[in-house]
């Protein structure tokens, strides 16, 4: 497999076929912010923070670097007024859900995001999807999944699966950038505890 040469922020970068622009950038020490990306999981392309600008023979477009495949002579810009403006608004939209989320604080400072720009939302899940994808792709237990669509989208545990699998696992907990996952789990456990708890007691 021959090397593919592309340009990121004016720097020439060598990449292998099949890599994404994000992987190529990271290999060259260029940082691009991400939220829903994780090395153990398939790229998801949902948070849109990793947006970069491509210049294809004069025609510019914005793409998510975690999914865009490297190609010969690609010209990539990772920071610009437009990109920064968009990242700032995306962060502000997320901060309306989870103003204290640890992973968002540094990014918010860097891009000047105002946590009070939008009215506070009742749900603190920011839909990075890491918990759902980890449980499906790595653990293959499918204990937690998405419910509903659009602005009503939530995460939800399947009580019967969670009561069997989650107590001894909880590997998704540290992945969650907010308190939403733990809250969802605790709620599920509380609701199911009356029937399932007695089952577990009986098994002992």
């Amino acid at each position: 497999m021959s090397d593919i040469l592309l340009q990121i922020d004016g720097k020439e970068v060598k990449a292998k076929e099949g890599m994404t622009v994000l992987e190529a950038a990271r290999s060259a020490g260029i940082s691009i912010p991400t939220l829903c990306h994780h090395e153990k999981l398939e790229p998801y392309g949902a948070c849109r923070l990793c947006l970069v600008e491509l210049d294809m023979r004069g025609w510019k477009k914005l793409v998510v670097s975690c999914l865009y495949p490297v190609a010969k002579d690609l010209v990539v810009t990772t920071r610009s007024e437009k990109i920064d403006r968009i990242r700032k608004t995306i962060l502000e939209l997320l901060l309306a859900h989870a103003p204290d989320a640890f992973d968002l604080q540094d990014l918010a400072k860097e891009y000047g995001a105002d946590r009070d720009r939008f009215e506070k939302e009742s749900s603190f899940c920011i839909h990075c999807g890491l918990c759902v994808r980890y449980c499906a792709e790595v653990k293959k237990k499918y204990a937690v999944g998405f419910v509903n669509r659009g602005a009503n989208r939530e995460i939800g545990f399947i009580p019967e699966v969670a009561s069997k699998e989650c107590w001894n696992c909880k590997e998704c907990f540290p992945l969650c950038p907010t308190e939403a996952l733990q809250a969802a789990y605790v709620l599920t456990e509380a609701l199911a505890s009356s029937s399932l708890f007695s089952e577990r007691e009986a098994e002992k």
Partner: protein
Amino acid sequence: MDKDRIDGIIDKHRSEPSSLIQILLEIQAENHWLPKEALEQVSERLQVPMTQIQHIATFYKAFSLVPKGRHQIHICMGTACHVRGASRVLDTVEGLTGIKPGETDLDLKFSVETVNCLGCCALGPVVEIDGKAHGKMAPAQTADVLKNYD
């Protein structure tokens, strides 16, 4: 709904996981809602995780996880009906039934839904009740139309 009946529907689609949505649509059409036991049976037979079924059952508007009323009121909120005053008709229906779109009343008499374009734009605003389309609806006549349903 009968377990055998559900097995029959699944067999008809050759137990293929890609037919999941079609199978759920058939169960919904016959039973008017998707009970948990039915979903568990489908999950088991198709070897599809419950999280996927949960997502699909809540993602698509055609499915209901709670029993629906005897009469389905569908109010068209398509653009043509909207400009002809559909939101006023909706307000009146909400007032008369006491429920909002997506809800069923406590007697399980009416379920109200908004739908996007029934394709009868010439008759807008259109309210479809149990599959029958009532055209050129105005707030004033809504009470009369609903009275006919018990």
